[in-house]
């Protein structure tokens, strides 16, 4: 009998910085079952729980008019190392309801200090981002999810790099720049960054200082109000040797689409790494769309009156179901991506929320891990 495994079992899936902690957690859980000791401890200090990662807002600093860096002290279980360029899931409770979004980390995970930072741009239609920039006060407890994402520099770092960023797309790249300079690494970097005016450039001082100090960092600001949009097809004018560079690009959908097309044409698609922030959002009047079942690798076009449960069953997927009228919660699953609409209330639900498949229809497109 694997005693070690037995000890850890109640804490399976709990993120712990040191795996040994879960042995203790699992043993104590025999007395706190069906809860974990964390469920009691976080009543004393909200950060003393690794069952669901938590953090506490330490500070909110304005970067530009509509951008702020939020510094967060992380609680138990949050990994102290992550890759610059990765993003982190943030949950904030507003009017009783937790809202979840992902933001790029702008801190670089320097070992011991247990704080992270995200830089958030307040979107006019971004409910949560406005709250983070203007409304969140230090001391607020938030929820966190472990850092994720493939948008980061490889080891070893390539010798020649191209960064193409626009607006708040700078955030993951800023983390990469900070990491490189913290590690004293000096690859040859060409950076093209677009923003409407100088005032809108997040981290302007830091980037300009870096450009002054480091010979190999070539910063090209594209101030679109006076200079017009960055035209991907004229890439040669900014970086004649772009074909030799590994490129990381982050920004609005249109820019990334153009970048992808450009690299595709050049036969260099594998050189380009992109990070998409915006999911194709439906307008609120739209109904129906594509539902994807990721694990079964199936998808269907359905109308706004067909439930996800029906859609799945029609595709032959084993779907959990119960009452089929929205009262029993048997069919609840996390929404892995996209948007759905609650057929009873018309409310739109988005990625990260848990939904009942029997009363939800797709709104634009959505993905379920089924």
């Amino acid at each position, binding site marked *: 009998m694997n005693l070690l495994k037995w000890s850890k079992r109640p804490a399976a899936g709990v993120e712990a910085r040191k795996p040994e902690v879960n042995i203790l957690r699992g043993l104590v859980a*025999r*007395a706190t*079952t*069906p*809860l974990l000791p964390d*469920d*009691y401890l976080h*009543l004393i200090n909200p950060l003393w729980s690794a*069952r*669901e990662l938590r953090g506490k807002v330490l500070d909110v600093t304005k970067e530009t008019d509509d951008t702020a860096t939020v510094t967060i002290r992380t609680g138990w279980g949050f990994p102290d190392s992550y890759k610059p360029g990765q993003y982190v899931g943030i*949950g904030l*409770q507003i*009017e*009783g*309801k*937790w*809202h*979840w979004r992902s933001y790029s980390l702008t801190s670089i995970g320097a070992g011991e200090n247990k704080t992270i930072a995200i830089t958030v741009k307040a979107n006019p239609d971004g409910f949560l981002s406005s709250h983070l920039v203007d409304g969140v006060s230090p001391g607020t407890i938030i*929820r966190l999810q472990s850092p994720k994402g493939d948008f980061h520099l490889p080891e070893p770092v390539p010798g020649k790099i191209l960064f193409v960023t626009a607006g708040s797309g700078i955030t993951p790249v800023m983390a990469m720049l900070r990491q490189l300079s913290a590690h004293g690494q000096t690859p040859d970097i060409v950076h093209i960054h677009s923003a409407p005016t100088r005032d809108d450039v997040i981290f302007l001082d830091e980037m300009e200082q870096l450009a002054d100090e480091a010979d190999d960092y070539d910063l090209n600001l594209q101030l679109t109000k006076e200079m017009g949009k960055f035209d991907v097809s004229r890439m040669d004018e900014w970086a004649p040797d772009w074909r030799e560079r590994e490129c990381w690009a982050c920004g609005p959908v249109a820019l990334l689409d153009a970048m992808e097309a450009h690299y595709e044409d050049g036969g260099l698609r594998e050189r380009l790494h992109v990070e998409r922030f915006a999911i194709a959002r439906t307008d609120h009047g739209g109904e129906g769309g594509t539902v994807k079942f990721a694990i079964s690798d199936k998808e269907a076009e359905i109308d706004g009156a067909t439930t996800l449960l029906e859609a799945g069953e029609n595709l032959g997927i084993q779907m959990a179901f*119960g*009452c089929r*009228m*929205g*009262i*029993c*919660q*048997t069919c*609840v*699953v*996390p929404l892995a991506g996209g948007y759905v609409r609650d057929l*009873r*209330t018309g409310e739109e639900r988005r990625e*990260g*929320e*848990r939904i*009942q498949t029997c009363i939800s229809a797709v709104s634009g497109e959505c993905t379920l891990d089924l």
Partner: protein
Amino acid sequence: MAITDIDQYAHLTDSDVETLGAELDAIRRDIEESRGEADAKYIRRAITIQRSLAAGGRLALMFSNKKVAWAAGTAMLSLAKIIENMELGHNVMHGQWDWMNDPEVHSASWEWDTTCPSVQWKHSHNFVHHKYTNVVGMDDDVGYGILRVTRDQPWEWWNVGNPIYNLTLGTFFEYGVALHHLETEKLRSKEKTYRQAAKDLRVIGTKVGKQAAKDYLIYPVLAGPNWKTTLTANFTSNIIRNYWAYMVIFCGHFPDGAEKFTVEEFENEDQPRWYLRQMLGSANFKAGPLMRFMSGNLSHQIEHHLFPDLPSSRYEEIGVRVRELCDKYDLPYTTGTLLGQYAQSFRTIAKLALPNSLLKATSDDAPETASELRFAIREGMTDHFGVDPETGKRRGLRTALRELKNSPVRSAHVGRAASGSPGRNQN
């Protein structure tokens, strides 16, 4: 036999039922739109209170050799178990707090502090009981597979033990609930195989093992020399919780006036009629704020059955509006004191130990179950129902029930009606 035509029983026309449904939909919408910070605070506070009581109780019981510590510890632990069962476990698993999007207070992730595995509970309770509420033969809560709670269930010789089974169920209620999912009736009727039951039983066994180990092994061991008194304290608090939960739950569907329904009724049902069945099939009991909290707001069983997934803390407010609707449509709103409601439930269960031939009322006109036929017993009685042209007041089910009750000729007519149409009654 139980209600077959709910419109006729409720003395409502098609359009009445439609508008009633729309008005109940409006209540749901209003509550959903107004859920917010205060509700979230309420449930967070309830969780804090419950966990503090649990921790305090366990701590006090470390010194359970002292009588005061034993009593205080047992009391705190009992309260914690009751709150966890009723206001937290039951309601969270109904999805009442899913709107908060909090992964820790969510129907998909909550495991409650009792022997019934929550995944099974969500099936047997949330789905089977709440969808098929009081449909005889479909809702396993009608008798829990062992009790005879309505004259519609055929009498068997072993039903003589009805009151004893009932009290035994109360004592070991958490185990009764855990075994509920086995669906013994379906096993008997071969709708379910023993292999499936064995699978369910394994899941139940694992949970029972964890729960029992905690109360009867781990804490006694931690208490060292006080192991024996810790053991008795834990046992006592489980029994207290069991009786309380059982009592609250039995007051929800078994007092007089909580109606039962036939499969025929269910088959022709739409959403407004589903609402109507919930209203007629459930019963409340009167409670102040503390009692409401301790019963998980199931003192508002009617509201809970209409809106099982709306926050329990709003049932009192919803109840005001539901009572208004009952007045408007002249429908009964079955309620009474806790003890009164329980006494009625127990009386029915005791009575039903006997076969129908020894009982006075018929299953069309008994305290615990009735049908639309009960109104056919007096000639012309249904004729003057509807809206009074002079006062504009509605004469509906509530008025009819009252008249029936006050009718001096009632019993004779019941007898005649029952024997006069045996075909319908014994179906």
